[in-house]
Each structure stands twice: as structure tokens, then as C-alpha cells.
């Protein structure tokens, strides 16, 4: 029987939530990596038992964890205990070193700081892990300060795809309030050489050659906080989403504005329509309907909680502009949580399941494409990320 596995990263560890295809009775396991921030966990589409997790701490830095049994056990790849000198390979799973070689890195050492001065590029953490669609040992990592890394040996070693930082606009990139993070990585399922990334606050970028070269794709974006609101670089893109059947159709939740592109990001148009506010973090697309989109509006950039004390997911079945509030089963008074950018996901069952996690520690699920909701769990630490695997 089919089932789902929901991978939840929180401020204080990771949790795995499982259910059968009915998605009504849930088993909650965890915490894994208790006490550490888990910014993201994601499973390999090529091998559902292969999971990757980003575990980090202000004290101890970055650790990448890997599971080969669906989250029952974990290891830091290459980080086993050596019993004698030379007995084991060196553990380098938490080693992310920017490429500063002349050949590929175009030694890029500074970006723009908040005050407009140049500031050294400093690795802080991995925000997002995106496993390859075809190879369980290949995984991309989006990091802060913004860069894209790739491992082809199951997260033992990491190499920067330096063409992104080095394509020309890197020195103009600037951190947003949450840091200068590369938080979104989308690989085109019909053309794995095409990759999209998004950076706060630099914008969206696309590669058509498997990550070697990149270009900004921000035409049509308008950001009032910029001195030149339609600038090529500097937009605080919060999240991108695409549908596997129409990967040239992209949706974006920007700092303000919900946007849509029908040409793989070459141009964008606003589809915020009748949303109560077009500020927010998450955006996702229905598993079977490429024009059905979900967002979760947040009051404003100064007030990071849902408006009017009501937790409402908004769904458009027309690719944006016309939105309906989905409230059944969600608190409609005295609710002041946020839903962070990596904390919404959909499963591939029919009807499509939709999931999101809040900064209040609730993880909500809908087994009917958003028509009704119920909490899977209510009292986790603040949720940083939610991913879902559909299991055969």
C-alpha cells in the first residue's frame, strides 16, 4: 500500500512523520540531531531510502547527515571513527570551501554588505539540499553566504559550482534580513542540465549547462526597497516552484508579490490578484495540476505572522490572480505563526496531499488538495522545513 513520509526540520532537531495512503493516522519519530538546527532534509527521488539532512549550530558549524534506510539510522558520510592512523578516509562531509581558483572561481572574495561596503564571503550553513533526480549519490547544496555546491559521492565531499558566484553580479549581492542564503534549487525534470536557484537578496538565476554558467532571470520583478526597483540584481526572492509536467512554468513568492513566468524565468508578471497580502515565504504547485498553486500570506515584512490572527492557505486553480482561502481545520483566531520558505510540500498521491509547518511547531496536512486540514503534530520546535516523500 502506498504511503507518505514527511521530513520535518526544526530549530531543535529533525522529525519523521509517516502514514499510509489515507494520511489520517500518523507515526511521529524523532528528534534526530536533538538540539541542533535542521534547516532542511530531503529524500532522493531515485532512492527513497536515501535521505540527506543539514544539521547546523552557531557553536559547532555545519554537519551533513545521510541516511540509507529511510531515516532509521544516520551517518556523517566519511566521518566514521578511525581506530588507527590511516584507518578510515577523512570525514569531510561538513567541509564547504568556496572555490577561489583562477580557472573556475574567478577569485570572488567579497559581496555587498548591508551598508553597501564590500564584505568577505563567509560560509555559515546549508539552507537547502536538493538530491539529483537520477543518482542517489549526487546532491546539490544551497548555502549561506550564497553559493551552490554539489556532491557526487553521497555527501562525502563537496565542490562549489563557482560559475554562479562568478558570473559577474556576485559583488553586488547583498544579504536579506535572514542572511545571504541560496535557499531554492530546482532541477528541471525534463532537462537535468537546466537548474534554477534563488538567493535572498540577489534574485533568481538559471543555468542551462548543468550549473557551469548562470544568468540572472529577474526581468519583470519590482522591489520597492531597491534604489532602482527593476534592477537586474537585488530582489529578495523567497521561493520558486515548478511543476514536473510544465517545467518552463515557474511561480515565485517574492518578499512582496507573487509572480509567474511562462518562459523559464526570462520574464515575470505579477499574479498576486486578490490575496489579502502578497508578502509571504512559501509557494508550491499541486502534484497533478500545473496551474493549481498554493501560498500562505504573511502580514508584512515587519510583522512576520499571518494576517488577522487567521491561518489561511490560499489556492489558485488558474495559475494565480484569482485566489481562494482554505481555512477548514486551520485556526481562525488568535494565531500568530509564520511559515518559512522551505516549510511547504506536496505529495504525489491522488488526491494530492499538501503539508506545511509553522514557527509555532505545528505541522498541518491536507489529504484533499487543501480543502480541509488537520494537524499531524502540534508541539514541535519551530519548523524550518517540510518535505514529503510518496512511497510505493
Amino acid at each position: 500500500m502506498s504511503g507518505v513520509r514527511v521530513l520535518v526540520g526544526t530549530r531543535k532537531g529533525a522529525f519523521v512523520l509517516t502514514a499510509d495512503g489515507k494520511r489520517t493516522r500518523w507515526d511521529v519519530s524523532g528528534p534526530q540531531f536533538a538540539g541542533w538546527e535542521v534547516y532542511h532534509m530531503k529524500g532522493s527521488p531515485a532512492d527513497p531510502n536515501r535521505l540527506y539532512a543539514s544539521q547546523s549550530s552557531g557553536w559547532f558549524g555545519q554537519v551533513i547527515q545521510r541516511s540509507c534506510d529511510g531515516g532509521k539510522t544516520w551517518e556523517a558520510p566519511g566521518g566514521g571513527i578511525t581506530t588507527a592512523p590511516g584507518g578510515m578516509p577523512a570525514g569531510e562531509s561538513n567541509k564547504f570551501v568556496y572555490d577561489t581558483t583562477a580557472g573556475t572561481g574567478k577569485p570572488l572574495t567579497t559581496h555587498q554588505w548591508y551598508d553597501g561596503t564590500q564584505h568577505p564571503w563567509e560560509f555559515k550553513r546549508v539552507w537547502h539540499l536538493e538530491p539529483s533526480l537520477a543518482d542517489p549519490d549526487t546532491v546539490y547544496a544551497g548555502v549561506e553566504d550564497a553559493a551552490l555546491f554539489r556532491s557526487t559521492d553521497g555527501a562525502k565531499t563537496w565542490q562549489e559550482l563557482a560559475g554562479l558566484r562568478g558570473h559577474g553580479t556576485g559583488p553586488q549581492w547583498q544579504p536579506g534580513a535572514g542572511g545571504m542564503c541560496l535557499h531554492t534549487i530546482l532541477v528541471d525534470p525534463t532537462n537535468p542540465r537546466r537548474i534554477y536557484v534563488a538567493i535572498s537578496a540577489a534574485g533568481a538565476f538559471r543555468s542551462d549547462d548543468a550549473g557551469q554558467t548562470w544568468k540572472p532571470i529577474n526581468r519583470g520583478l519590482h522591489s520597492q526597497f531597491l534604489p532602482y526597483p527593476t534592477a537586474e540584481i537585488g530582489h529578495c526572492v523567497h521561493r520558486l516552484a515548478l511543476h514536473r509536467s510544465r517545467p518552463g512554468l515557474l511561480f515565485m513568492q517574492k518578499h512582496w508579490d507573487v509572480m509567474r513566468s511562462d518562459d523559464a524565468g526570462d520574464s515575470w508578471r505579477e499574479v498576486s490578484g486578490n490575496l489579502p497580502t502578497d508578502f509571504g515565504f512559501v509557494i508550491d504547485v499541486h502534484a497533478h495540476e500545473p496551474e493549481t498553486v498554493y501560498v500562505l500570506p504573511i502580514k508584512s515584512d515587519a510583522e512576520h505572522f499571518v494576517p488577522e490572527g487567521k491561518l489561511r492557505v490560499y489556492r489558485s486553480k488558474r495559475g494565480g490572480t484569482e485566489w481562494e482561502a482554505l481555512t477548514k481545520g486551520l485556526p481562525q483566531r488568535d494565531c500568530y505563526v509564520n511559515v518559512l520558505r522551505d516549510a511547504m510540500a506536496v505529495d504525489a498521491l491522488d488526491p494530492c496531499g499538501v503539508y506545511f509547518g509553522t514557527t509555532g511547531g505545528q505541522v498541518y496536512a491536507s489529504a484533499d488538495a487543501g480543502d480541509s486540514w488537520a494537524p499531524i503534530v502540534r508541539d514541535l520546535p519551530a519548523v524550518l522545513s517540510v518535505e514529503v516523500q510518496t512511497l510505493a
Partner: protein
Amino acid sequence: MIRVVLPPHLRTLARLTGELQLDVPGPVTRATILDALEARYPMLRGTIRDHVTAQRRPFLRFFACERDLTHEPADAPLPEAVVSGAEPFLVIGAIAGG
């Protein structure tokens, strides 16, 4: 043998309970202790000092024999009591936030 005490999160990461003992060849300094620690427990690389620069992570400090050794040079000889194993070398996380 050199005795080392790690903060709880690093003990969990290295799958250790209690203090550990390390064979540190040559002069016993903070750098040689951390070299031996990371060689035996490679999952700890990058968690105490930077991979590339070997600089101490900002929220960590080093103590031994009731002395704060955090700002001593990394290659300075450690107290004889640490060398003899009478006293442990302590890696301490700052109490901040969380």
C-alpha cells in the same frame, strides 16, 4: 594519554560518552590535541576550528587546570598536568541563547 572533555553536542556527534583519551605524538599543544582528535573522530572536523584557517569557532573556549587557554597561541605548550594526564583539556561551549 591526553584526557579531553568535549561539550555534549560534540560527544553525541562523535558517539562518545564521558571524556576521551588521546595519544598525542610530539609536543602537547592545543593544535596537536585537536589534530589528534580530528584524525580519530573526523566528524568533528570543522566543528571546533575552521577547516581552512584552523581558527577557533567564536563560541568555543579552551580550559585546563582552571586556566583559560582560549587566547593562548595554538602551538603553545600545555600545562604539565595535561601532558601527564592528571588533568583534562576542556573544550567548552559558550552559554549563549538557544
